[in-house]
């Protein structure tokens, strides 16, 4: 039973229940509840379940140094938004958490996240951070945290397969992707040469953005108007290309709508494909013999360009944020700031965590000085072409759909794209639908 009592189920709660049972209308507006108020001398830190060991090791050091104990928990990335929102509205004790750039407006507007620009010791790191990162943490002129990691969508290819198909250079345009894929197909080197994950999950928007940007299109213009349905400026070319790749050229598996980023990664790493759209940092895994059957053969090329496009791709930002409930309590706020600095800034004068993440997981960092770090360069050269990495990074763009209503729109948009891919709707219909829901939501 102890577990129950640990969670403070007791006479108290049941009295509360029976009392509340009588109330005809429990308030629709949340009210705080003492039962779950956090102890001031401890912090609640919540992340999605990535780099867990790296986080833990870095936390151990933190606790040792400041004597603040930290309750660390994590949830799968796929359910992270739902989980966090239920925690916010449930007033669960929570001080520091990982935030994805796409959720910032929603969470800031709802008053769940607190700006951290009141803390000079945190702001000072902006000087050394790439301004893409800093911009991604801004909302309405306030900065909401410090970096966890930043990365972009990369285009990988299996050098070996290309050679065997007699292909000299990786594709520079999406058109070449088709040509080369057909070649590979004919050579029997791969059933579906291009690995594309189009399953409805949190990753989908990153894949779609990469495709759209590299085709020189936009979902939304700078004024926040939906242009995705626009045949010239919009996502039309990108989506049309995907639809053809699946249905006309058959170079992308029709199963792509059920394959998430992770299974895509595994499929690619087990050698089923020749090309893949995957988060840049995955190249470490892909070239690690322990985890990949094509280790050493995976190379990065610039994101292919669409007719009207350059080689642009999408970049994303994940960062450490502070909750309003923490900010409201001086001691907790102070500790939270310490923790954010420890992870997002320097720990003991070094960008410990950023480096750790890079060395162990390979995930990209937004702090420029690390590029000069010898260990980092050494590691990079082991499995990647650092020049290419930086070249593509320069072409990475912030998602243009980040907004208060992103969460809701994402649902609609995901469905729309899939409908087009499985042929239940035309490209135009799909994009019109998506644009429609954007406009409705932006008015609400």
């Amino acid at each position, binding site marked *: 039973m102890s*577990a129950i009592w640990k969670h403070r189920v007791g006479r108290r*709660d049941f009295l509360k229940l029976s009392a509340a049972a009588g109330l005809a209308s429990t308030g629709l507006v949340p009210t705080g509840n003492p039962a779950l108020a956090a102890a001031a001398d401890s912090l609640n830190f919540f992340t999605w379940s990535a780099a867990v060991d790296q986080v833990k*090791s870095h936390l151990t050091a933190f606790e040792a140094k400041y004597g603040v104990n930290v309750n660390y928990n994590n949830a799968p990335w796929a359910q992270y938004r739902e989980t966090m929102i239920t925690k916010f509205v449930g007033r669960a004790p929570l001080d520091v958490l990982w935030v994805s750039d796409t959720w910032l407006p929603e969470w800031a507007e709802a008053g769940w996240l607190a700006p951290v620009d009141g803390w000079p010791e945190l702001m000072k790191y902006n000087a050394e951070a790439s301004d893409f990162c800093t911009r991604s943490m801004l909302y309405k002129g306030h900065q909401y945290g410090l970096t966890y990691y930043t990365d972009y969508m990369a285009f990988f290819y299996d050098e070996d397969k290309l050679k065997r198909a007699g292909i000299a250079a990786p594709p520079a345009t999406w058109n070449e992707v088709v040509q080369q894929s057909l070649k590979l197909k004919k050579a029997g080197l791969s059933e579906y040469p291009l690995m594309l994950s189009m399953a409805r999950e949190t990753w989908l928007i990153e894949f779609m953005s990469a495709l759209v940007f590299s085709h020189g299109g936009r979902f939304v213009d700078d004024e926040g108007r939906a242009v995705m349905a626009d045949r010239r400026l919009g996502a039309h070319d990108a989506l049309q290309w995907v639809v053809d790749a699946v249905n006309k050229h058959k170079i992308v598996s029709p199963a792509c709508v059920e394959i998430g980023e992770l299974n895509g990664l595994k499929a690619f790493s087990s050698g089923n494909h020749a090309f893949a759209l995957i988060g840049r940092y995955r190249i470490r895994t892909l070239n690690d013999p322990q985890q990949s059957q094509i280790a050493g053969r995976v190379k990065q090329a610039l994101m292919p360009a669409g007719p009207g496009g350059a080689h642009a791709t999408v970049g994303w930002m994940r960062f450490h944020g502070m909750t309003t409930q923490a900010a409201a309590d001086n001691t907790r706020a102070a500790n939270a700031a310490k923790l954010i600095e420890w992870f997002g800034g320097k720990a003991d004068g070094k960008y410990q965590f950023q480096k750790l993440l890079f060395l162990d997981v390979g995930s990209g960092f937004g702090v420029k000085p690390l590029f000069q770090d010898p260990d980092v360069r050494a590691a990079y050269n082991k499995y990647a072409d650092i020049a290419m990495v930086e070249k593509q990074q320069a072409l990475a763009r912030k998602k243009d759909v980040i907004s208060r209503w992103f969460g809701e729109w994402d649902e609609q948009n995901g469905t729309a794209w899939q409908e087009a891919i499985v042929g239940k709707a035309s490209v135009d219909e799909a994009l019109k639908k998506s644009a429609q829901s954007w406009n409705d939501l932006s008015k609400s």
Partner: protein
Amino acid sequence: MTVTLRRLGRRALLTAASVLFLTYVLAPVAWMASSSFQPETEITSVPPHWIPHAPTLDNFRAIFTTGEKAVTYETRRQGDPATGKFIPSTAKNLLPGMANSLIVALSVAGLNLLVSIPAAYAMAKVRFVGRSASIYLMLTTRVIPDIALVVPFFLFIRKLGLLDNLASLIITYLAITVPFSVFILLGYFESLPDELDKAARVDGCSRLQALLRVFLPLALPSLVAVTLFTFLTSWNEFLLALMFTQTPASQTMPIIVASFTSDFTISFSFINAAGVLAVVPPIILAVMFERYIVSGLTAGAVKG
């Protein structure tokens, strides 16, 4: 002659049917079990190995050997949280999750008996104003879809500050179990002769005493059935748990298992291992208490 022929034919037919039957029911489970013993490299082989060539216990080991030791820079696993074998870092949550499920299931089963027995007895043996009304209430609540309860429950649980707390599950599971329990018991009590009740009361039992001293001992089989159902229902429940729990502190087995599918690093064989662990307890219960379950199910369902 023809008789023996027919008997032979019959036996052949029955055997064939039985084989089909067993295949249909067992094959999927068997495949899950087989997968759970395969290393990641083997499980991704095409076509699949129906029987593991290099059986391994790694997946189960990952679940059972999870000391919550402090991780330092030195002791950390390098690479992704699941270097190499794709075993999710959350593997260690499975056992606590099962513990949570156990606590919830036991509490719900207990509360069910407490609440349902007297009610069922009253409905079955006492003539009182509002009897049929209460039976209707019970029958109606029995068919409220859980999905329809989610929103009000959520707001309500939040109001009580019980989100991410086992209590929220225990309370809400009553909604989906109590009507069924009452139903089964009602059916059973009704099947016991009224004269027993009368005899007991003439012998000096109050209503409560008649229930405790005479009916309870006689209702034992149905009590077992009810306990089993409420236990299994709570042990298997997914939707409400998904809504009301967010951290391993309160997440039950189904949630943890489901979370593996959407976790960063996913191992097919590991998920199957988790699946195997999830099905073992219910299967044991089901096979052990088959008799009670069948009788209970029929008692519970046949009347609607």
